[in-house]
């Protein structure tokens, strides 16, 4: 206990990562019927957590080696399991991202959720979410990480299904929970295999393992792929994509949190967390690279057809996650982490801006919002454009830098197909995000003036009435926009920070890139290619949606089957449904049902029948006379005694 107070880093970690849990407990137990107090408690605790995280970020930068605080948890034979904190640059950075984004989202929610009947519950779950994610980030062993990983899943389930009286919301929550669980089974199997084959689940130990030669490459491949199953589930990679777009059934701030810093980032974070371990297996890396690429392209195409504001950003999240996985799998460790960082910023920004529109116009449809004068909302309109520019990789916004880094990592791969896939993805990303922006800016058929005036009036009125609430939503958005603008220029300092600690990481990173130092194309050309991919996408979007007299249908509408394919999410949901219906429900389930009916039920019925009949047969011997029973007993005991003494 004393140790906690002696070490400022440990103290900050403990305080920062346990306060949200306390606030959840307090809210659920005491202040459920006082929404005001609940939100204040939750916001205060998350602000303190963010401050602690920033403090740790600074401390870790100054330290020569990672902080590791551990106590023994279980011990069995040679297998020792510890429980504790492991703070290296990566986890300190991630901790900061989580705490800051969660903090901004909670402040934003003060405005967005005001007047909601489940206000206290919302803040309790938000606190739970932040707590679970922060503890997952700094977990020192894979098992501890898995525990909080599941808690993150639980919290997101509760938040996605927040409007549980709405059928689609509860279904979406269920879907998210079940689909991520499919991946988690793999993750857990991976942990078991590591326990059996390696006997140590400590994250730094795992990362140093490939260098020592204690385990074979085949074993690493198997374990890494199983762990990657969890990443696939959590980060909505192919084929478990479809839960994420549905997850926007929750309140918009929840989507912002879910899509940027917490839930889906968890998967990529785990990948980068044990990156050196992964990197020791080229096969696993190749599979991860392929999955990331497929995910990115699929999700980008899905985003091109939907008119739902949040859904576009949801698909784009999936595709950006695919990009991060690609980057990591291509050995671009820093590029992946950097993109995770910048993406957390601008994706939260995009969702929060969309949230303001949705809050204002009570619809998710971008065409309707545009028609009703969405562009008159200056703050969210400017901010959402900033976010979209960053997403499209336009300089000087943060997304440009991280996307360039990723393209650089892909460029180092021997096979150029990955680079072209990345460029194509960047083009699609720019196209669909500006399709949305132009829909908002230049709606089809112009703004309906009467409606707009009315909205303006009510808006002005609202601003008087709910001034504080509006600014509670606007200020976090503006902060995020500023971060998005400047974060990119911090690339080199961040790179120094992240790569400072890990010799293993650096080694693995260079090993995984395959030493193709010169790359497919030159560095300058790559930058030009990256920018132009984004710009071409934006220009295409301008031609179709922005300029005067544009058709506003998109080139895809000329190919109805393709449009339909994209719109139906490549029939992935339909496939899952079909698979469930045929294989699970009518195959396995019916077998189990038959087993249950015939063998288990039948067996028990048979036993009952046998017992009952036997009882009836023998009941004539029971006279109900206590004393005769006793008599027999005494007689037998006495005779036994006589037998033994004679």
């Amino acid at each position, binding site marked *: 206990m004393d140790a906690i107070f002696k070490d400022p880093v440990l103290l900050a970690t403990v305080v920062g990562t346990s306060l949200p849990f306390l606030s959840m407990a307090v809210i659920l137990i005491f202040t459920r019927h006082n929404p005001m107090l609940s939100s204040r408690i939750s916001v205060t605790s998350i602000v303190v957590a963010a401050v602690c995280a920033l403090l740790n970020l600074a401390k870790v930068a100054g330290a020569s080696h990672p902080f590791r605080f551990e106590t023994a948890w279980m011990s069995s034979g040679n297998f020792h399991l510890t429980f504790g904190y492991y703070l290296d640059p990566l986890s300190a950075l991630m901790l900061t991202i989580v705490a800051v984004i969660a903090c901004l989202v909670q402040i934003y929610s003060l405005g967005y959720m005001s007047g909601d009947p489940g206000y206290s519950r919302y803040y309790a779950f938000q606190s739970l979410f932040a707590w679970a994610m922060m503890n997952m980030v700094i977990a020192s062993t894979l098992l501890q990480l898995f525990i909080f990983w599941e808690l993150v899943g639980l919290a997101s389930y509760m938040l996605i299904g927040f409007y549980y009286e709405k059928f689609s919301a509860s279904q979406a929550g269920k879907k998210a929970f079940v689909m991520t669980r499919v991946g988690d089974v793999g993750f857990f199997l991976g942990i078991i295999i590591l326990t059996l084959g390696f006997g140590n689940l400590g994250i730094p130990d795992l990362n140093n393992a490939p260098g020592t030669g204690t385990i074979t490459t085949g074993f690493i491949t198997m374990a890494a792929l199983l762990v990657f199953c969890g990443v696939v589930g959590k980060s909505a990679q192919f084929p478990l994509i479809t839960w994420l777009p549905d997850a926007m059934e929750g309140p918009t701030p929840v989507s912002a949190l879910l899509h940027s810093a917490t839930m889906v980032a968890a998967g990529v974070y785990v990948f980068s967390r044990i990156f050196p371990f992964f990197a020791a297996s080229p096969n696993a890396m190749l599979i991860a690279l392929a999955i990331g690429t497929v995910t990115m392209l699929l999700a980008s195409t899905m985003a091109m057809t939907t008119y739902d504001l949040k859904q576009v950003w949801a698909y784009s999240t999936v595709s950006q996650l695919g990009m991060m996985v690609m980057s990591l799998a291509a050995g671009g460790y820093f590029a992946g982490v950097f993109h995770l960082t910048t993406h957390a910023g601008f994706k939260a920004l995009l969702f929060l801006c969309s949230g303001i529109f949705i809050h204002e116009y009570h619809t998710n449809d971008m065409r309707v919002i545009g028609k009703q004068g969405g562009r008159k909302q200056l703050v969210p309109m400017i901010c959402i454009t900033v976010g979209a520019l960053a997403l499209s990789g336009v300089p000087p916004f943060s997304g440009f830098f991280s996307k360039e880094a990723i393209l650089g990592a892909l460029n180092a791969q021997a096979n150029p197909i990955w680079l072209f896939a990345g460029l194509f993805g960047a083009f699609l990303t720019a196209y669909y995000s500006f399709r949305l922006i132009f829909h908002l800016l230049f709606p089809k058929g112009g703004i309906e003036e009467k409606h707009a005036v009315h909205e303006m009036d009510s808006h002005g009125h609202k601003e008087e009435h709910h001034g504080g609430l509006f600014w509670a939503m606007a200020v976090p958005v503006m902060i995020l926009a500023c971060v998005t603008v400047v974060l990119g220029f911090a690339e080199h300092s961040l790179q120094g920070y992240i790569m400072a600690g890990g010799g293993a990481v650096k080694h693995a990173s260079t090993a995984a890139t395959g030493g193709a130092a010169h790359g497919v194309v030159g560095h300058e050309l790559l930058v030009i290619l990256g920018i132009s991919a984004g710009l071409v996408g934006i220009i295409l979007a301008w031609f179709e949606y922005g300029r005067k007299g544009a058709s506003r249908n998109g080139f895809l509408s000329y190919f109805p089957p393709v449009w339909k394919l994209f719109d139906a999410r490549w029939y992935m949901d339909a496939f899952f449904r079909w698979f469930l219906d045929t294989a699970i429900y009518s195959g396995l389930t019916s077998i189990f049902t038959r087993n249950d009916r015939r063998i288990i039920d039948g067996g028990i019925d048979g036993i009952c029948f046998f017992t009952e009949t036997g009882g009836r047969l023998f009941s004539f011997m029971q006279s109900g006379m*206590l004393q005769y029973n006793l008599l027999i007993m005494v007689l037998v005991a006495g005779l036994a005694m006589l037998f033994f003494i004679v």
Partner: protein
Amino acid sequence: MNSLNTYLIISAFLFSIGLVGVLQRRNLIGMLISVELMLNGANLNFMAFNRFLTPEPVVGQIIALAIMGLAAAEAAIGLSIILALYRKMHSINIEQAQRLKG
């Protein structure tokens, strides 16, 4: 004084007389009385061993006291059961208490 066997025979006799009562009385209170006799037989046994065999003559006395306590508890429970049974069946004849026969 007299030999250990004398006491043992006496205690065995008390026990057996009690046993006869338990096996044959139909009155529940009579059965209870017989059980008390059996307990006394056992107690006498302990006291006799205590007098003739043990290194420390305190042990048997403590056991005897414990058995007396048990007997008191048994009597209290037994009597309350008899009262409850009497209220239910308006009889304390053991041969009528055979509802469990089914």
